[in-house]
């Protein structure tokens, strides 16, 4: 594939292409089948490109070791994208951020001497040849795989990078490394500061735009958050006049954090108006390449998450974590279909004298369709009459944005002006059908003086013939539009979604309608037989409760654990797992221990808990280290030599955007009073991940088990979850068939529903939930076990659809 560009757009094999991309994380949506499902949904929603970060850390657990097998096989992901008919934007970092653990840098790299991650300390540039050597290793692995796929159209180096002095050496070297390894498509970088950074080091200048990053902010009220977007064409032109305006990350959702406001709040706060405004304003600024970040939500299973985020990376994306289409998907779909219907790849800004309070306007001349498009946005809180200079008065809903054609010549008529939204256009040599979204406040004005009201019922049709060519306007209501699918040569109505091969998915018995220009309307009944009522969640029967932390027991043999000296943090121990165990012997002469651990920890002496603490704290966006002193006495230190056990839960390394990826984790410091050397033995993971024999006497970590069956059929899409709504315990780690799929920590707006990732589901499933509870809640071991047997865990279904060919 030959990819070039000019100041208007990307040109693929000589043809201008509007890039409508969506971000997808294969590591958070693991496995080929899940990737296919999400890519098909993207394609049917009108996206033509998928943006893929390649996560170095995910593939490299040890120096010189790379794993691209099984669910880490990125070839299968890229092939799935190709099969879905999507182009790919490849973003292999080396640093990717993405709220992943250590920003995607391998843990082993972070501890290497002379390696300066990202060649910077804070904002100060510090070139590290050794860092560059390891990047070359990563690029040697990943770029040949990327190069196997000719649908890769763009390649990104680094991610949102800047230093105080902006030396170009690092970026130029990355560029050269990519080219030397055979990357032939245009290379870009995403400037997070929209300041023209690195424009001279890459082919295409691109930037990231997130106007809403504070969930406490109300963008409807503080609507100036779009200021940058409203002027973005000027930024692009002054940064690099020769390349097309490209928003490499355009906000289509936002991530939630520990102690955040919760995804339901963020989704509600953004509404589907936000993605509409973002995307249409970008179009009004001449943008011809955009990438909705994220288009597909994901799950931080395993140890994927950085410390900031919890298990769900739902991101309020158009396709949510569970693969279910949300309202912002339907809005994005409308815009994508519109862009498929009218080629927008070559437009120019045009003067337009107009001012009305809180109304944004922008006029563009369209070199291809030979018409003007007027972009209008209403940021008033109420329905507003917009009085245009052409005498037309629009009744504009609050926070809406429209693209209005002016003097648009069609086959059978000419639109003088219209604020009725165009959904999609089918056309052949002599006939076109333009589907419009009914809107009681909108009107379509033809140049012959005829006015068509937007208040219409489904399928209401108007026909115009001129010089043997015909235009039909066919209205559909918004609710039908959400269930309508533009397939290029036909439209399918009433489906939950469709696949690129035309298969339709429905969640109940449905009469599907089809329209194409040859046969017009047709119908087909889809009778759902694959599932009965799945709306109600059922309580799982707890089959077993076991205590599972033999490490805390006094007779536990830890002689084969790794012995460490002096430093006890994760890097020094070379252990990067979520859980790290420390064992040591301490005399009864000590009166106090002082320790700092990231992030949650408990100390046990002779098998009894002395402290259990959550040390994770962020203040003003910075991690706040905590040092705790624990007084000890003869009642605790009952022997002359006492067994000390510390369990630390590491919630992840910093993502590296504003903090340091190599901030220490695990037991960061430990001292006794009086001061004396302590020799620690360390090991990673909980026992259930190591061995089947994990029964213990102590009750501090308990495993609750349940089993359930799932009917897995090729023709059925389903998304299942377990719910902790009435869960009384404070912390839990969830394993599905032995794979760690989530961590539960009781906080404000805690995540209660956990996705049972389809890739890890089997017909018969085992769920293990390891509860790490504070002692104060444990009256007696027997009572505690019996308590846990009565824990209510609900198994539910978000969505089920059956596919029909």
């Amino acid at each position: 594939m030959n990819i070039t560009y000019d100041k208007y757009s990307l040109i693929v094999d000589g043809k201008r292409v509007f890039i409508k991309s969506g971000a997808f994380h294969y590591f958070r949506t693991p496995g080929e089948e899940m990737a296919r499902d999400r890519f098909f949904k993207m394609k049917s929603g009108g996206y033509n490109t998928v943006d893929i970060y390649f996560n170095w850390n995910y593939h490299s657990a040890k120096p010189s070791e790379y794993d691209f097998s099984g669910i880490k096989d990125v070839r299968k992901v890229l092939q799935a994208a190709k099969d879905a008919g999507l182009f790919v934007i490849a973003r292999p970092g080396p640093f990717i951020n993405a709220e992943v653990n250590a920003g995607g840098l391998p843990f082993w790299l972070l501890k290497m001497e002379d390696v300066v991650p990202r060649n910077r300390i804070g904002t100060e540039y510090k070139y590290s040849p050794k860092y560059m050597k390891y990047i070359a290793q990563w690029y040697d692995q990943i770029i040949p795989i990327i190069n196997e796929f000719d649908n890769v159209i763009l390649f990104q180096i680094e991610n949102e990078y800047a230093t105080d002095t902006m030396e170009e050496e690092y970026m130029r070297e990355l560029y050269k490394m990519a080219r030397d390894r055979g990357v032939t498509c245009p290379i870009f970088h995403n400037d997070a500061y929209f300041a023209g950074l690195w424009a001279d080091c890459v082919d295409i200048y691109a930037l990231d735009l997130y106007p809403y990053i504070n969930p406490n902010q109300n963008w409807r009220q503080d609507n100036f958050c779009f200021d940058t977007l409203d002027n973005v064409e000027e930024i692009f032109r002054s940064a690099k006049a020769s390349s097309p305006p490209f928003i490499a990350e355009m906000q289509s959702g936002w991530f939630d954090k520990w102690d955040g406001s919760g995804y339901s709040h963020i989704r509600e706060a953004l509404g589907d108006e936000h993605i509409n405004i973002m995307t249409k304003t970008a179009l009004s600024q001449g943008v011809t390449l955009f990438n909705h970040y994220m288009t597909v939500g994901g799950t931080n299973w395993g140890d994927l998450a950085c410390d900031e985020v919890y298990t769900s990376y739902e991101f309020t994306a158009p396709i949510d974590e569970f693969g279910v289409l949300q309202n912002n998907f339907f809005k994005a779909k409308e815009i994508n279909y519109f862009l498929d219907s009218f080629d927008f790849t070559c437009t120019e800004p045009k003067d337009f004298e107009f001012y009305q309070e809180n109304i944004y306007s922008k006029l563009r001349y369209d070199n291809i369709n030979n018409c003007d498009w007027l972009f209008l946005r209403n940021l008033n809180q109420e329905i507003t009459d917009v009085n245009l200079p052409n005498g037309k008065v629009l009744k504009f809903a609050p926070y809406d944005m429209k693209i209005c054609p002016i003097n648009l010549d069609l086959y059978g008529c000419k639109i003088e002006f219209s604020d009725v939204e165009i959904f999609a256009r089918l056309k052949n040599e002599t006939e076109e059908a333009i589907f419009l979204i009914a809107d009681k406040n909108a009107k379509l004005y033809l140049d012959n003086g005829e006015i068509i009201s937007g208040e219409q019922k489904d399928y209401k049709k108007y026909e115009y013939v001129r010089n043997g060519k015909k235009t039909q306007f066919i209205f559909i209501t918004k609710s039908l539009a959400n269930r309508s699918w533009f397939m290029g040569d036909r439209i399918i109505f009433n489906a939950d979604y469709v696949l690129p091969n035309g298969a339709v998915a429905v969640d109940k018995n449905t009469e599907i309608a089809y329209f194409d220009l040859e046969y017009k309307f047709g119908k087909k009944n889809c009778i759902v037989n694959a599932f009965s009522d799945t709306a109600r969640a059922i309580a799982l029967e707890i089959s077993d409760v076991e205590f599972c932390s033999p490490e805390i027991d006094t007779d536990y043999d830890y002689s084969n654990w790794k012995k460490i000296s002096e430093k006890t943090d994760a890097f020094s121990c070379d252990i990067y797992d979520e859980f790290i165990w420390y064992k040591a012997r301490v005399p009864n002469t000590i009166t106090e221990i002082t320790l700092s651990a990231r992030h949650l920890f408990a100390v046990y002496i002779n098998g009894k808990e002395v402290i259990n603490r959550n040390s994770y704290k962020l203040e003003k966006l910075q991690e706040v280290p905590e040092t705790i002193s624990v007084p000890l006495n003869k009642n605790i230190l009952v022997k002359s030599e006492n067994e000390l056990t510390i369990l630390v839960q590491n919630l992840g390394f910093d993502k590296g955007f504003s903090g340091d990826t190599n901030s220490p984790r695990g037991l960061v410091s430990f001292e006794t009073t009086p001061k004396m050397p302590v020799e620690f033995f360390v090991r990673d993971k909980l026992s259930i991940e190591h061995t089947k024999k994990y029964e213990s006497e102590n009750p501090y970590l308990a495993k609750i088990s349940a089993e359930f069956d799932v009917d897995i059929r090729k023709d059925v899409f389903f998304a299942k979850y377990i719910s902790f709504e009435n869960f009384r315990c404070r912390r839990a780690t969830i394993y599905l068939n032995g794979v760690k799929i989530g961590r539960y920590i009781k906080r404000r707006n805690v995540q209660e529903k956990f996705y049972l990732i389809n890739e890890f589901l089997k017909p018969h499933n085992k769920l293990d939930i390891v509860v790490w509870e504070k002692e104060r809640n444990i009256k007696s071991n027997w009572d505690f076990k019996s308590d846990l047997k009565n824990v209510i865990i609900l198994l539910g279904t978000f969505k089920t659809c059956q596919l029909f060919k």
Partner: protein
Amino acid sequence: MVVVPEFLIRRIYQKGSLKKTDNGASLDLKNVLGPGFISGFNYVKINDVVYDASKVKFITNGKEIAGVEVSEENPIAFRLGQTGTLIMTGKESVVDGNNKIVIEVMNPEAGKVQLSVDDIV
């Protein structure tokens, strides 16, 4: 502290705007970075004189806002292209010739944002 390169933050300061006043100093800012909020004035330091929030006023959009009134709960909008004047009182600090200025404000999304520039009077 957030990784915004210094050279970008410095662009907010209006070069040549530092002035001596009767009992302090004033200087001008212009937001050329992007729309946002100021959720706190930590301090302004001119040469060796530190003005905490109680000694700082910000005049923007025709309104005078005391530094202590600005907080996480009561942030002030600072739009792209918006200008404002910081007025520091309580002690003289500006000298003829080169002056070292440090302004530290809080931003709800970025945390501490520190601007450090030199200006000649």
